């Protein structure tokens, strides 16, 4: 009982926070204080569920008898969801602190709407994490899309609106056309939508149609940005950086891959997929996405765009883990949700700090920035290491587990992983290196005379003096950087948490 | 013999219909609709559908023709231009007609007494209605009792028609002419000088004859109302006939005069009353423990008497509403103050051109308002050639 109450509290707090923020709209300080406090409270509430989950007593909460005929609106906190919820709720207060600093430095309009939608997105993310059946998951999946739509179109410029259309078009389109279809078919076939360890489809769906159903699910979760449905993610980068940070590194995109993992584990069941090989094509697609996205990331000069493509490739890792359906791969995918989240949010924090403080948006402008913003660039370095998967960062463990899983499947996949790590080194490490070891350009106009309208825009910005980023941004990004390191030492807890997924 | 008559009537109908379709002068066309209704009334009589014939003659040939004329007096009286034959329309028509013909192929023979239609239900009415209700006219029994709620709904339709016309046209009445002598006298003719025709209302014969006829028409109306139980007729026909009396008055002495004697405000109330009487009878039946419109409960000892009372009241309600509505509709049309909006016609390139149609010129609103169907009839010839002046 108290457990289900805990679930209710964890879900309710963000909504309350959103309401309060809306009320406090006029007074920024109160507003951001409320945001931060609710963030912390939510994290505590979520963390409070952890012991029960570890002990295997999964908290449950049923809100509505039958949201659809025979399908309740209910939540059950299982390990994977616990992890995702912890990540999302844990990074929310950090990000809101960062966002406060960022938005003020940046003099954005509609800040209240921003924070309200932010809180709602977290609410939706938690709903997805705790969802006890496909219908509930779908409900919150759509809520997440709708709650983030205003954040993407935040600037209300024509390009922002265009990005918003692409965002909504792809995310809602795929979810309505594919995911809903898949869910409806699942219900028609299996007669239930509950997440059951071992899956619900065995014996209900013809082996021949399993791959198709899996495809509907995977591409229905457009948030996973699996190619060729990845276009929305780079588009969404027009949003303010905190949005890119939390949502497009943590909440939204992870919602996609998390949903895929959860569906693979609890709807299809690992054994079913392993026996039928219905997910082989997915390994291929995931590998393709990993490599292609990394290659594209190479060509991106805009910092946020490069990070976006790196995200696409990293998400494909998790999908790949799901597709390989070996225990290690699943664990690695789950762990990667956490490690990549922390690492990528660090990178985005740094990118935002650079944009706001130094007015630099292009990689090629960062030469010598390390002298002015050492902490920021150090954090960026750590984040990069974690993404690439080098010790001493958490990323290394998840990559390692994935590699183990790949080894079970086929050497080719191992090769893919190695290659992509090399690519990662190629497109991420140069950034801190340039920042630390290159000399600041005397006149960027001459250096990049060919390209970049930005340079001319920032021509005067180059010489204006600036130091380290605003503390409200500096502290959060340092925290997450430290997080990357901590994960290296404590990731076995995460693995222990996820273990029940693969040992029924 | 009967067949021969039927054939002739059908030929007449077809001819009328086709001429009506080709006729560009709308006065003539509306006359033709009247003729069509009259002939079909004859056809109904041949087919022994006396009530239908009666009603069709009163409504189709009478009221609707007058309404169309009144409308024409407020709009153009000639079709802008002959349209080429429209193939899509023809396609639709052929399709529909073909479907119907196809449908007739499995119909029972015409007049076959063993057809399913004449089966159980019809038998029941023919055999039992005398004992159950005791009216010689089965149609009245069915209409007012067995299928009473159909008639209730029918009355509702009439009521809606009255309301609608009031809502659409009631807004702008042309004000009454200076009271005193009855209008119609020494009013300048509504025709441009040069082609002045004798005005109907200036013909003493017409006025006298009308004066003489009116009381008899009203008397006949009451007869039909009362006699509906025994012969063809009933509330509806009676109402229409009563209305025609007033309409005739309006035609001859001018709608303003009619409105002066029968103020529309009162008519509106009356039209409501009739419907309420009908519904009231039903409600009373409910209060007495029967179902809606179950007249039997009025005199439990002797149900058929109850039916007599019920049917009488119901028919009364029908008569009241129908007559009121018909008068209202006519009066509203006839007293509508027309706008002097110039007529708009399409020229060759379908670009709209505005211009003043011939019979808008010499008229001041009040006068034009006073023209009603009858005058236009009397000036039918003039109407056509005036119309033909409209460039098309």
């Amino acid at each position, binding site marked *: 009982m108290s457990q289900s109450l805990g679930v209710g509290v964890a879900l309710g707090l963000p909504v309350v926070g959103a309401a309060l923020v809306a009320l406090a709209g006029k007074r920024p300080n109160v507003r951001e204080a409320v945001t931060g406090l609710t963030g912390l409270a939510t994290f505590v509430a979520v963390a409070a569920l952890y012991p029960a989950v570890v002990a295997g007593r999964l908290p449950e909460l049923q809100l*509505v*008898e*039958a*949201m*659809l*005929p025979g399908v309740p*609106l209910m939540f059950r906190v299982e390990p994977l969801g616990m992890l995702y919820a912890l990540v999302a709720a844990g990074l929310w207060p950090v990000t809101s602190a960062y966002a406060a600093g960022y938005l003020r430095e940046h003099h954005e309009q509609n800040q209240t709407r921003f924070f309200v939608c932010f809180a709602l997105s977290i609410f939706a993310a938690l709903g997805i994490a705790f969802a006890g059946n496909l*219908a509930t998951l779908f*409900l919150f999946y*759509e*809520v997440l899309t*709708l709650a983030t739509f*205003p954040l993407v*179109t935040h600037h*209300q410029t024509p390009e922002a609106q265009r990005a918003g259309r692409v965002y909504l*078009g792809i995310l*809602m*389109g795929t979810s*309505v*056309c594919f995911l*809903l*279809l898949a869910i*409806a*078919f699942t*219900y*028609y076939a299996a007669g239930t939508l509950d997440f059951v360890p071992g899956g619900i489809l065995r014996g209900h769906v013809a082996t021949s149609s399993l791959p198709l159903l899996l495809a509907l699910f995977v591409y229905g979760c457009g948030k996973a940005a699996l190619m060729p449905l990845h276009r929305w993610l780079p588009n969404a980068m027009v949003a303010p950086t905190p949005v890119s940070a939390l949502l497009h590194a943590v909440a939204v995109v992870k919602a996609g891959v998390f949903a895929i993992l959860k569906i693979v584990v609890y709807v299809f069941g690992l054994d079913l997929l392993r026996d039928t090989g219905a997910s082989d094509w997915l390994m291929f697609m995931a590998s393709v996405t990993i490599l292609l996205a990394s290659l594209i990331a190479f060509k991106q000069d805009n910092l946020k765009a490069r990070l976006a493509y790196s995200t696409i490739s990293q998400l494909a890792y998790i999908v790949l883990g799901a597709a390989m359906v070996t225990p290690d791969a699943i664990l690695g995918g789950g762990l990667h949700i956490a490690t990549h989240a922390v690492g990528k949010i660090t990178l985005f924090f740094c990118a935002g700090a650079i944009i706001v403080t130094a007015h630099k948006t292009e990689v090629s402008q960062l030469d010598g920035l390390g002298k002015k913003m050492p902490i920021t660039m150090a954090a960026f370095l750590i984040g990069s290491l974690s993404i690439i998967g080098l010790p001493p960062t958490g990323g290394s463990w998840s990559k390692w587990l994935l590699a183990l899983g790949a080894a079970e499947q086929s050497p080719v996949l191992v090769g893919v992983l190695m290659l992509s790590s090399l690519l990662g080194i190629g497109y991420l490490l140069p950034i801190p290196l340039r920042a630390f070891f290159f000399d600041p350009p005397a006149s960027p106009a001459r250096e990049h005379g060919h390209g970049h309208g930005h340079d001319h825009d920032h021509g005067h910005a180059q010489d204006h003096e600036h130091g380290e980023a605003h503390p409200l941004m500096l502290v959060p990004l340092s925290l997450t950087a430290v997080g990357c390191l901590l994960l290296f030492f404590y990731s076995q807890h995460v693995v222990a948490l996820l273990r029940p997924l693969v040992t029924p | 013999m009967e067949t021969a008559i039927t054939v002739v009537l059908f030929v007449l109908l077809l001819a009328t219909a086709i001429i009506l379709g080709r006729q560009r002068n709308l006065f003539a066309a509306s006359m033709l609709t009247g003729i069509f209704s009259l002939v079909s009334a004859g056809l109904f009589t041949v087919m022994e559908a006396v009530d239908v014939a009666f009603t069709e003659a009163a409504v189709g040939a009478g009221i609707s023709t007058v309404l169309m004329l009144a409308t024409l007096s407020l709009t153009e009286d000639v079709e802008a231009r002959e349209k080429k034959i429209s193939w899509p329309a023809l396609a639709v028509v052929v399709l529909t007609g073909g*479907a119907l013909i*196809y*449908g007739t192929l*499995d119909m029972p023979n015409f007049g076959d007494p063993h057809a*399913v*239609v004449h*089966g159980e*239900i019809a038998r029941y*009415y023919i055999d039992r209605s005398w004992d159950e209700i005791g009216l010689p006219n089965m149609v009245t029994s069915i209409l007012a*009792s*067995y*299928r009473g*709620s159909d008639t209730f*709904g029918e009355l*509702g*339709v009439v*009521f*809606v028609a009255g*309301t*609608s016309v009031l*809502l*659409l046209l009631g*807004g*702008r009445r042309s004000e009454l002419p200076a009271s005193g002598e009855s209008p119609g006298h020494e009013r300048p003719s509504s025709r441009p000088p040069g082609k002045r025709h004798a005005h109907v209302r200036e013909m003493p014969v017409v006025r006298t004859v009308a004066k003489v006829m009116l009381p008899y028409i009203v008397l006949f109306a009451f007869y039909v109302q009362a006699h509906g139980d025994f012969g063809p007729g009933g509330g509806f026909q009676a109402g229409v006939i009563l209305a025609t009396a007033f309409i005739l008055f309006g035609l001859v002495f001018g709608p303003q005069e009619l409105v002066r004697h029968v103020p529309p405000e009162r008519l*509106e*109330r009356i039209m409501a009353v009739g*419907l*309420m009487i009908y*519904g009231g009878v039903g409600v009373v039946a*409910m209060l007495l423990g029967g*179902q*809606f*419109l*179950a007249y039997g409960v009025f005199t439990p000892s002797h149900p058929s008497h109850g039916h007599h009372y019920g049917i009488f009241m119901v028919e009364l309600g029908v008569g009241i509403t129908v007559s009121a509505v018909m008068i209202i509709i006519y009066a509203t049309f006839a007293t509508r103050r027309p706008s002097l909006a110039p007529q708009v016609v399409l020229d060759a390139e379908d670009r709209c051109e505005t211009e003043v149609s011939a019979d808008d010129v010499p008229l001041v609103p009040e006068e034009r308002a006073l023209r009603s169907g009858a005058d236009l009839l009397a000036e039918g010839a003039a109407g056509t050639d005036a119309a033909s002046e409209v460039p098309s």
Partner: protein
Amino acid sequence: MSEHLPILMVLVPLLSAPLVVFIKHRKASRVIATLACALSACAAWTLALQMSSAVSYPLGGWRPAIGIELRVDFAGAYVAAIVSTIATFAISLGTRGTREDVVGREMFFYAAFLMCVAGLMGMVVTGDAFNVFVFLEISSLSTYTLVAMGKERRALTAALNYLFLGTLGGTFVLIGIGLMYQMTGTLNAAAVSARIREVEHLRTTHVAFAFLAVGLGIKLAVFPLHQWLPGAYSQAPHAVSSFLAGTATKVMYFQLIRVVVSFFGVAYVFDTLHFGDFLLPLSLVAMFAGSLSAIFQPSLRRLLAYSSIGQVGYLTLALSLGTEAGLNAGLLHLGAHAVTKTALFLIAAAFIAQVGDDRLDRLSGLGKRYPLLSLGFVLGGLSLIGVPGTVGFVSKWALLEAVLAGGRPWLAFLILASSMLAVVYVFRVVEVLYFRAPLANAPPLARERADWGSWVPAGLLVLVSVGLGVWSELPSEYVATAAQSLFGGAR
């Protein structure tokens, strides 16, 4: 008294209309009209909730088929309840958006409105074919007039076109009834369905059904026969457009179901005539063409009207499956769309009251100025799309399950693809409301004060459409029993 409920829900508005005209008092007439609708709604709900099986009410005390029988089954009670409730909400708008010459003669407006309600209710409850025609004409005739009362002069042409098409439809229905009567010798639903077996091989019977279907199809705005709808919905006064959008096509849809299920029988219609094969393609075309043209409409109410054409496509699609599941989905969608679309039209009315006209560009950036209204529109729009958590999703889900049970997944995909179009046209409006700068040179607002007369009912309906989307077992279970009792033994 409770045995009289079926007739009462028709009688109250039908007799209040003459009362209103008789009293001839502007304020009183509005009060009476609202009360009448509310009472009729109460009657309908009481019947709907208390009934345990189909109710039969012999008018005039004559046994069915001799006299006229009112027959209300679960589905009928459900539709009647929806119609009367929506009428109550719509009438609360009063004479907003009517042409000026109505002023001073409101009682006739209310009388016509009441007659329209009575006609629709009558169509729903009666069990006699010809009685259906009579009530159909009552409602149609009053509808034409009400539509013509719209502000712009285009309302007049819209009304007249509706009159021509509608009367043709009515006459087709009349022909169909006639042929059916000629074949069976009776007009009573039960009796007809009992005898249709003997004559179902005859060509006349086929044609009878064809004419009934086409006639009702015109009134229901099935795809090629929908031309009257956009004009009528977008030009009518607000009370009327809200009411029509929620009820007119729905009642006709219910009549079509009745003709198929109660009169001719599913087996005959779908196995002998293959009605589904005609209806299905039309429905698909309607789903896409309607929504597609909704995307390009310049004004809010025209957009909603075209989306209605698309939604009718879903309704007919559900019917064309010819299964109980399909019927269930159709009835669910009937209710869902009635509530949603009425709410949206009420919101449109509120916007027009504030801004002056409903051209989309005039609404730019009003989301901040009217947060409640805009939020309401968003929620209603989501329900139109069928986003989970709204009642639109419940019906769409039922439709999907029905289609899948019919073994046609590609159909399910088409349904979802077409609802993507709904996403487009809804978010087109949302974008205008929230993410456009207000027109720099916008003319001043028509009125400053909030127009509660239309905000409150709109808000309530939106809440209903969201609430029922979450607690969906209330409608689902009732409709399931309704469909079951309607379909029961039909196959």
